[in-house]
């Protein structure tokens, strides 16, 4: 084992854990972004339920064509990816970079598995001639899951960036803060899906 974290941060870098009670996980900017993004999604979720109330029968008939199994499977995949990202961050902090790398590769595998499920799910809908223009429900379905997928693909890039950090010989406090920023973004991708799943797939 040749790689360890310098636990005494460089003079210009923020400390790794300045105070366990008041530590912002990642840069503060990512939290501004996360809270704004969550507010945007909240507005979309409310708009969906509002429109659903206006045409309940059409939305129910359309929802009946969704596979709850695909939605639930992707929820379990993302929860597992988040657990692996937690292990990755803790591994990087502890200087156990090989284990951190394995955990993050596992998270990447989960992200790819999510995409594969999504390809099957969307492919099935397109094969049945269901598109975003079919009706209001499908517009929301493709819109919300599409915007989420866009976030997930950015998250894949973020995971790749975090993986690169596990190959650095000497990690600074700034490196660890970058990794925490990426992890916070990834957990947000998980979090948004936690609302999308019951809203689109389960609400009757």
């Amino acid at each position, binding site marked *: 084992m040749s790689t360890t974290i310098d636990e005494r941060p460089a003079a210009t870098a923020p400390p790794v854990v300045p105070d366990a009670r*008041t530590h912002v996980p990642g840069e503060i900017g990512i939290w501004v972004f996360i809270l704004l993004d969550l507010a945007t999604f909240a507005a979309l979720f409310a708009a969906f339920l509002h429109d659903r109330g206006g045409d309940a029968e059409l939305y129910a008939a359309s929802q009946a064509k969704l596979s709850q199994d695909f939605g639930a499977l992707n929820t379990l995949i993302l929860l597992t990816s988040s657990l692996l990202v937690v292990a990755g961050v803790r591994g990087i902090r502890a200087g156990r970079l090989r284990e951190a790398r394995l955990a993050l590769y596992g998270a990447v595998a989960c992200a790819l598995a999510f995409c594969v499920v999504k390809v099957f799910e969307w492919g099935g809908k397109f094969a049945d001639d269901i598109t975003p223009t079919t009706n209001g429900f499908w517009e929301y379905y493709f819109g919300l899951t599409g915007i989420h997928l866009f976030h997930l693909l950015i998250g894949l890039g973020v995971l790749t960036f975090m993986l690169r950090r596990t190959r650095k010989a000497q990690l600074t406090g700034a490196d660890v803060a970058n990794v925490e920023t990426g992890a916070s973004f990834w957990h947000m991708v998980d979090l948004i899906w*936690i609302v999308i799943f*019951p809203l689109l797939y389960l609400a009757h």
Partner: protein
Amino acid sequence: MHSSDTKLLTPRILVVWGVLVLATVVSWYLGTDHGFSSKDGQSVATSIVLVVAFVKIRFIGSDFMELRHAPAGLRRAFDAWVVVVCLTLVGFYLGGQ
């Protein structure tokens, strides 16, 4: 503290993950018409499923995103989002029933 003493996954994190998985499976069951055939029954089941989702999100925030150790302002902002959006969505859902 030597770094190799650090557990990559603490018992608490594993329990949180287990609870999140269990909550997902129970929601999946409740959301697929098991024992809730009446309209009122479905409204109750869906409301429960929505509230459970936001309880799950609170755990993701506190444990996965490490907000348990974050400054109070950030924790409160996140909690406010959880409570406001949960109540709004359940309200919009029930209003549309």
